[in-house]
């Protein structure tokens, strides 16, 4: 089995007002990659290239061992795809959609589909046009999950959902994660959702990947140091300081490569370390984007 499910190498796509620039990442089989970026960052474009729906201008894309977009039909046999802008046929019922998908995918799991219907509180005879937005997302997710795909690609699936529906969708995704062979790529601008289910994180902004690591490493290496400087002390300088905030004698340093030795080094330079704060993924993402946009990180 190929141990890498998704591989992007130097992928670029040019539009008149937007460029996806030199995207490269790998998604190992069995892992869950959270693709985080603000609106318009290039998440959907990247995912559409992954699905073969948009052709890259440069670079290579391999999905489940298939070259995209040339082998997209074969690759999509093993992919479940749900995107925020995907709609089902309004005039048809949930049951008709299930039968349609079942006729295409030989691995369709009818008993799993029936259990998802119950869990998502959907009925086969319901027409799509009569469903709420949350129910439509759940119906699309049901169709993607019950085909038992090797790769699940979810483009902003929780956008526009109320908190209860969002938790139900995330809960189901977490249940899916029990299958170690299942690979998931999950894009969102909601870092809280991504933090709950992902083990790898890619940050994208303005068409470029600005950082990528596993989630624990992100959470381990990003810290905020709250310092108190004496009158004659100088602000400590470390590599990896991405932001300096706060007032003159009470600076707050944000670092993306925290090490415990920094605390003692600060003290040696006459600064008192008041607190070392961990950061949420959202804070890390915002600090990362702002520092890149401000040119503080190279």
């Amino acid at each position, binding site marked *: 089995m190929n141990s890498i499910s998704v591989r992007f190498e130097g992928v670029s796509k040019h539009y008149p007002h937007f460029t996806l620039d030199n995207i490269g990442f790998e998604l190992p089989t069995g892992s869950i990659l959270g693709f985080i970026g603000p609106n318009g960052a290039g998440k959907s474009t990247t995912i*559409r290239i992954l*699905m*073969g*729906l*948009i*052709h890259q*201008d440069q670079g290579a894309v391999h999905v489940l061992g298939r070259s995209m977009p040339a082998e*997209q*039909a*074969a*690759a*999509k*046999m093993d*992919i479940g*795809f749900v*995107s925020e*802008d*995907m*709609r*089902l*046929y*309004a*005039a*048809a019922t949930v049951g*008709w959609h299930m039968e*349609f998908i079942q*006729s*295409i995918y030989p691995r369709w799991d009818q008993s799993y589909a029936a259990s998802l219907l119950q869990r998502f509180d959907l009925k086969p005879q319901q027409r799509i046009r009569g469903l709420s937005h949350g129910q439509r997302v759940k119906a*699309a997710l049901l169709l993607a999950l019950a085909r038992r795909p090797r790769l699940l690609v979810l483009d902003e699936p929780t956008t526009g959902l109320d908190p209860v529906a969002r938790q139900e969708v995330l809960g189901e995704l977490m249940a899916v994660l029990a299958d170690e062979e299942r690979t998931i790529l999950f894009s969102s601008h909601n870092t809280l959702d991504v933090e709950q289910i992902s083990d790898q994180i890619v940050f994208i902004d303005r068409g470029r990947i600005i950082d990528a690591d596993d989630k624990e490493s992100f959470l381990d290496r990003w810290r905020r140091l709250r310092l108190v400087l004496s009158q004659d002390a100088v602000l400590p300088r470390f590599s990896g300081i991405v932001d300096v905030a706060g007032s003159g004698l009470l600076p707050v340093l944000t670092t993306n490569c925290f090490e415990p030795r920094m605390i003692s080094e600060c003290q040696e330079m006459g600064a008192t370390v008041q607190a070392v704060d961990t950061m949420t993924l959202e804070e890390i993402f915002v600090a990362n984007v702002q520092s890149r946009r401000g040119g503080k990180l190279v």
Partner: protein
Amino acid sequence: MNVAMVKRLILKDWYLQRVPIIGSLIAGALALSVILFGGKPGFILGLILLVTVLIGVGAQLAVATMVFERKEQTLPFVMSLPISYKEYTASKILGNLIIFLILWLALLGGSFGVLAISPDKPFGLIPFVAIMATEILVSTCLIYTVALITEHQGWAIGAIITGNLALNGIGYYVAHIGSIAKGMEGHSIQWSPAASTILAAEFLIIVLMLGLTFLFQSRKKDFI
């Protein structure tokens, strides 16, 4: 080409468009019976009704299955299935063309039949009827080509208008070609070189348009 997948996509479109399809088949059968049993006024009335049904169903299916796929955002759902642009394009053209051809062949067969069995109707009209019926097919293929390539309602409506204008213009032009006009009132078929050339050109245009549709679709870089 995954034929099984193309078939599933065609059946999907037929199911989703079953109301206009069944409606047009009923209307087509009704028009044919008017042609067969309505006497001379019925012949004209039935032909007008059948042509109207043909143009209507051709345009309706093209807009509903090609343009609305993008407009109603079901295209990402369809394109997430294990298909390529070739299967998608083939399913749209074949699915629409089969329904259209059922009615079109009824128009053609019915018209020929009535002309053949009715002594009071000019059998010599057949070359003109064949040219005009094929022109309707050309117009419909133009709508398919434009609707599929642009996936835009405005362009599709433009193609419908262009097709209808061309139908009237060509009807007028062909009816005034001496060698064709001469035989129209007669009781025997006269296939003049002009009639054969026009008919051949129409079929050539159809083949070219459908070929161009596949070519343009294959060159598309953004499919949704």
